[in-house]
């Protein structure tokens, strides 16, 4: 009897109905950073391909990567990676059934945001040859 009323059931309210919450913002940011990094990895793969082809082509790819726009994309990508990395670990803890209560979820969210900034700064310093 479970087939009764299939496809004609009430829908749950859409996302825009809700007041944005910290945990919601982090959740959608996880998706946005994940999808966005598809572009980052495409650019980096192109750079690897150029490195495999020859020096002249590599110079072109390198010039794009080190340009103002390229550098900006790389720094945003570095932050996206840092965020997705930290929040991914947060998700793995949830998958293990840990930290699911609301106060912990808010606190771990703060830790993720702070961690993403710290990792980005470390990454930039490594790229600059400080470490």
């Amino acid at each position: 009897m479970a087939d009764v009323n299939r496809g004609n059931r009430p829908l749950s309210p859409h996302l825009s109905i809700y007041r944005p919450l910290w945990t919601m913002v982090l959740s959608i940011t996880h998706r946005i950073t994940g999808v966005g990094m598809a572009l980052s990895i495409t650019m980096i793969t192109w750079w690897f391909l150029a490195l495999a082809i020859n020096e002249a082509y590599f110079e072109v790819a390198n010039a794009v990567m080190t340009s103002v726009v390229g550098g900006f994309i790389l720094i945003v990508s570095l932050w996206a990676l840092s965020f997705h990395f930290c929040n991914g670990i947060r998700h793995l803890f949830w998958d293990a059934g840990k930290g699911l209560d609301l106060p912990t979820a808010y606190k771990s969210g703060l830790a993720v945001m702070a961690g993403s900034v710290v990792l980005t700064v470390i990454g930039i310093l490594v790229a600059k040859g400080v470490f």
Partner: protein
Amino acid sequence: MRYQTDRQRVEGLGSAKDGTVEWWKQRLGAVALIPLVFLFIFPLLRSIGADFDTVRGIYENPLNALVAILFFITIMSHLRQGLQEVIVDYVHGKAAMTIALLANTMFTTLIGVTGVFSVAKIAFGG
């Protein structure tokens, strides 16, 4: 309405015949990526802006090449799974969704194979 009892439907696991395996594979890839991201990103950060010979030298190193190849395979499988989840959630209509899922598989395979091939070519000194 299909002439199937609820019990038959549960035992048949629906039309997909599986479900948890995709979830499990995504977590497996995610765990593998924790060390791989670190190992991949350090030589990469050092390489950006360096000259051709220096960067070639970095990826001629078998360890850096091996990490990069493992990273490309794992990240592209993780990206395919993630994008698939987003497509299934936001793309409506059977035709549009099928096309998006096919495009996703082709795109992630293309980028992944290009990355693996490029690093392998450099590492083998071609």
